Structure formats: structure tokens, C-alpha cells
């Protein structure tokens, strides 16, 4: 017995109203079970209790202009404090007549990072661009030639200092990290032992220790008579620290290369250096770009620790701003604004790394 329907396919119908549209969405997502309904109600109660006071504090009762701290008290948030101090928070002790220089530096960094984010730009000329950019940044900050007045490194502070420390740590730490990763996978036991030792040593101790070590011990390491700039000490500490973490990230990429690649390269007669440079590293590095970006985010956040050795990065300038006797006690306003600045950088970089990860996965999925 056969059973058949018309030749034409049955036209699609609209689903029942209770399961689509706003009501459908609410039912499916917020009230789809007894437990969830209770949770939703609890959350709404929480919102009702917490959000209005925050809005009142931050906007309704906030004081936007005031001559000094005294006048700014008694209401909600004192945004006048931010208005007064924002230049100091962002650029710190840099001479106020020359502020265009740190502003230019921050702009150059943002430009370099944005260009690097666009995958179409990846190539040799990007490396040259970055080298030129970093050289320009250091020149503009330090001055001493091209008619710019010299500004000592101890006056470099705020956002430019944070960016300099983080970016140079990654740029200089990266080649060192690659070498360490290759060394860790070497067949020569002595080389492997030393690389493993370095990586585990640096990863096993807190960053503060590395900063202390650089700050207190680097001067001792130098032959008598030589001194080393305090900022340079911190920069070296970050480079050494970043190198160890980058080495582990690169090692992950190296491990993911199938053995067949190395065998094919050997069969073609390539030397170790040629094989590494032309076959292994390009594949390994492109595999680990998302974790590399995550490492950069981590280093960027870690620069906040230089306050311990009296360098004034973005967090240090905020703290210094809070010690002004005329403007006492506006901790919440200050920290919220600085947190927002850090958040913007880190959040967008992490979103970017997620986009990258999706793109790379699409390429490898068959």
C-alpha cells in the first residue's frame, strides 16, 4: 500500500505565537522553568535595589565643576576631580609645555597596533614600520635632538609609560622567547637544561620579585662605575619576564606541528636553521597568535606593578594624583576612570584575539 502526497512541497507555516516574538523569547530565555523564573525575579530585584543609587551617585547628584576638593564634597561623584587631574593621570610628570610629545607617542602606539590588527598588513614592511615607530617614540619622548628638549626618563609617566613598557617587552621578549622555545625542544641536553631552567625559574616566581631583582640587583651586576637608568631596569625585567611566558606559548605551537613537516624538510635537505626559519616557525607562530595576544594583554595589565619601584605608570599617576591635599579622598572616581581606560584596551584586544581564533579555526576545519 503506497501513500504519497502532492508533487509540490507543502508550504511552510508560521510557528504558534506563544513561541516566537518577544513573548516567545521571554518564555524561552527568562522563564523557561520554575527555577529560572525565580532567578530572573531575584535579578530584577537586585537591579531595582542597586542601579538607581549608582545612577544617582554617578550622574544625578554628581558635581561636574568645582574649584577645589572642599566644594566637591557632599554630593554624588566628584567628576570635577577628574577634570582637574586628567592631564596628570594620563601624562604624569612630563613637562606641561611639551605635552604634545606624549600625546603623539600614544597616537603612534595606537596607530601601530591598529595597523598590526589588520591581517592584510602582515609582512616584512610591518616589521619595519614597527621598528621605525618604536624608534620615533623613544626619540620623541627623550628628546635631546631635532630641537626637542631633553626629558629624563624619570619624568616619563602615565599612559605613555605603560604603553612603552608593555610594547617593548613584547617586541624584545618575542625573539628571546622563540629562541628559548627552540632551545627547550633541542636535542642537546645542556641547551635544553639551561632553557628549561630559565623558563621555569622566571615563571615560578612572582613578577614583583623579578622587578625587585632588576631594580636592586642590576646595578650590582654592572662593573663598578657604570650606572643604569631606572626605567631601563624595569624594562629589562619586563623583557625577561615576557620572554619566559612567550617561550611557553611558542612551545605550544611547536608541539602542534606534525612530525611529518620536519621529516619532509629533512628529506629535502634543509639545514636546521633553514628548516626552522622556513617551515617550522611560520606554521608554529601562526597557530599561536591568539595566545600571543592574550599574553600581551597580561603584560599590559602587569605594567601596573612598576609602582613598587617608584615608576609612575598609569596606576602610579592616579595614586600620586590622590595625594593632592586640595583634593582628598576621591578614590572611587579616580579608580573607576583608570579602570575604564585599562578595560578599553584589554577588552578590545581580547575581542580581537577571539575574532582571530575563529578565523584561524575556520581555516583548519576541513
Amino acid at each position, binding site marked *: *500500500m*503506497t*501513500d*504519497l*502526497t502532492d*508533487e509540490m*512541497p*507543502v508550504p*511552510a*507555516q*508560521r*510557528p*504558534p505565537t506563544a*513561541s*516566537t516574538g518577544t513573548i516567545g523569547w521571554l518564555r524561552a530565555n527568562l522563564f523557561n522553568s520554575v527555577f529560572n523564573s525565580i532567578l530572573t525575579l531575584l535579578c530584577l530585584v537586585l537591579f531595582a535595589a542597586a542601579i538607581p543609587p549608582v545612577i544617582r551617585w554617578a550622574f544625578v547628584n554628581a558635581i561636574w565643576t568645582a574649584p577645589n576638593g572642599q566644594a566637591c564634597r557632599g554630593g554624588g561623584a566628584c567628576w570635577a576631580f577628574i577634570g582637574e587631574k586628567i592631564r596628570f593621570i594620563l601624562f604624569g610628570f612630563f613637562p606641561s609645555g611639551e605635552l604634545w610629545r606624549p600625546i603623539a607617542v600614544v597616537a603612534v602606539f595606537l596607530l601601530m597596533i591598529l595597523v598590526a590588527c589588520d591581517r592584510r598588513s602582515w609582512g616584512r614592511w610591518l616589521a619595519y614600520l614597527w621598528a621605525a615607530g618604536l624608534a620615533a617614540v623613544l626619540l620623541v619622548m627623550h628628546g635631546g635632538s631635532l630641537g626637542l628638549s631633553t626629558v629624563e626618563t624619570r619624568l616619563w609617566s602615565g599612559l605613555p609609560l605603560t604603553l612603552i613598557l608593555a610594547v617593548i617587552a613584547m617586541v624584545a621578549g618575542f625573539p628571546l622567547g622563540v629562541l628559548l622555545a627552540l632551545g627547550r625542544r633541542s636535542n642537546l641536553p645542556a641547551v635544553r637544561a639551561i632553557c628549561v631552567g630559565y623558563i621555569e625559574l622566571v615563571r615560578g616566581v612572582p613578577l614583583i620579585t623579578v622587578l625587585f631583582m632588576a631594580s636592586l640587583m642590576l646595578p650590582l651586576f654592572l662593573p663598578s662605575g657604570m650606572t643604569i637608568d631606572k626605567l631601563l631596569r624595569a624594562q629589562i625585567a619586563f623583557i625577561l619576564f615576557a620572554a619566559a611566558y612567550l617561550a611557553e606559548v611558542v612551545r605550544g605551537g611547536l608541539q602542534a606541528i606534525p612530525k611529518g613537516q620536519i621529516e619532509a624538510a629533512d628529506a629535502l635537505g634543509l639545514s636546521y636553521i633553514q628548516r626552522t626559519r622556513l617551515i617550522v616557525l611560520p606554521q608554529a607562530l601562526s597557530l599561536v597568535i591568539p595566545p600571543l595576544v592574550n599574553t600581551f594583554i597580561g603584560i599590559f595589565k602587569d605594567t601596573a606593578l612598576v609602582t613598587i619601584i617608584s615608576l609612575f605608570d598609569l596606576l602610579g599617576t592616579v595614586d600620586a594624583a590622590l595625594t593632592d591635599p586640595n583634593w582628598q579622598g576621591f578614590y572611587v572616581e579616580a579608580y573607576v576612570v583608570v579602570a575604564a581606560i585599562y578595560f578599553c584596551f584589554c577588552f578590545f584586544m581580547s575581542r580581537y584575539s577571539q575574532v582571530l581564533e575563529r578565523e584561524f579555526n575556520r581555516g583548519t576545519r576541513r
Partner: protein
Amino acid sequence: MSDTVIELQGVHKWYGDFHVLKDLNLRVGKGEKFVVCGPSGSGKSTMIRCINRLEEHQQGRITVAGIEITSDLKNIDAVRREVGMVFQQFNLFPHLTVLENLTLAPVWVRKLPKKEAEETARYYLERVRIPEQADKYPGQLSGGQQQRVAIARSLCMKPEIMLFDEPTSALDPEMIKEVLDVMIELAHEGMTMVCVTHEMGFARTVADMMVFMDRGEIVERAPPADFFSNPKSERTRLFLSQILAH
């Protein structure tokens, strides 16, 4: 007519706005073997997943072994006890041995003593012809062996109905026969089966009824003899020409 064990009446399902199952009506009798075929996206997997409530239908009625499937958890549990399912990706539990995979549900759902469950498990391992793999882990078995273990795992619950969702589609060609052999044996012993598959040779051997689905509806339903030699619908003819060409 034999007793009806599965009945679909006017079943509709939507994914959001997409109408994926359109007005399905089907009746499977006890001991009958239904083979469901059709192009990809036709809703065949969705339909059999609705039978054990792995998917929810929004309109219509589905009755399995006399129990109507609603959102009532008790009904769903009762239905799932009587319906066994074999998946395309096997879905064996990798952290348990083969024997533990087979005894898990009988112990925790049917509340059997461990010894009894193990005896049943070994019996079915024997039936699917891999009794020596009892203490191995799924990761150590080949694809064909894993799928046979999956069949044995469902059988250990002594279900009334067995559902197969493209059981051989993920297997290398040389392993398809060993799984189909087990399924044919099962069919000959009188198990009620609903199979989604592209294996037309198997369908010809075993099926009582062929069901062709396309774009969410059941287009044609016929015994294999009529279905393959004399398909009534143009869409069925087109599909058969594509699938039987090679």
C-alpha cells in the same frame, strides 16, 4: 494490524521561524522495520529524535509504547527506558570501560544489581561478537567495534523499539558490513526498528516499509518492492536516481 508502538499525528516542529517538520503522520506497528531516507536537511534525524524527546515538537501528538510524549518528565523517562538509540557518532562514554558503558544505565535507571547487569552486558557483547573487548576503553576500539558496543549498550536496557540515526555514516567502508550484520540479526529476531540510513541494500533486505522525507514532510511511504521499482512521486524518483546511481 499489529499493535501500534509509535504513532505520530499531525506533528509540526519549528526552529525559530524555520518550519522543519510539517504535519507528520506515521504509524509503526510492533515488530515492524521502517527505513527513513531522504536528502540532507529533510528532517529525518529531527523526526526520530522527537520520538525519544531529544527534540521537542511544538504541535501534534507523539505516542510511544502507549505513552504520550509531553513535557512531563515522568513520561519522558518512561519512554526513554523503552526506546534505544544508536547515534552516528557512537557517543560511547570514554572514561568508562566497555563493560561499564553497558551496565551504567541498567544499574542507575532500571536499578539492577551489578552482577545481573554485567551478565546481561556480557550476553549482548557476545551477540555483537566482541566479548573480548569488555575491559577495554572505547578509545582503544575501532569505529566498527565502537558502534557495535553502542548497539549492545542500547540493547542492555531491553528496549521495545530501537532507533538508528545514520549508524554507519561515520564508519570507514570496511567496517560498515559488521555493523549492518548486527542490525540485520536484530531485525530478524523481531525488534521494532526505525532506521535513518543511506544503506539501500540493507533497506531492501530488512525493511517492511520505506519512508521518503523531503523538506520536512513525508512524501512517500511504501514497501521496498514498490518503493524502489515504482516510486510514485517525482521527488522520490529524483532522490533514488541520485542515491542509486553509483
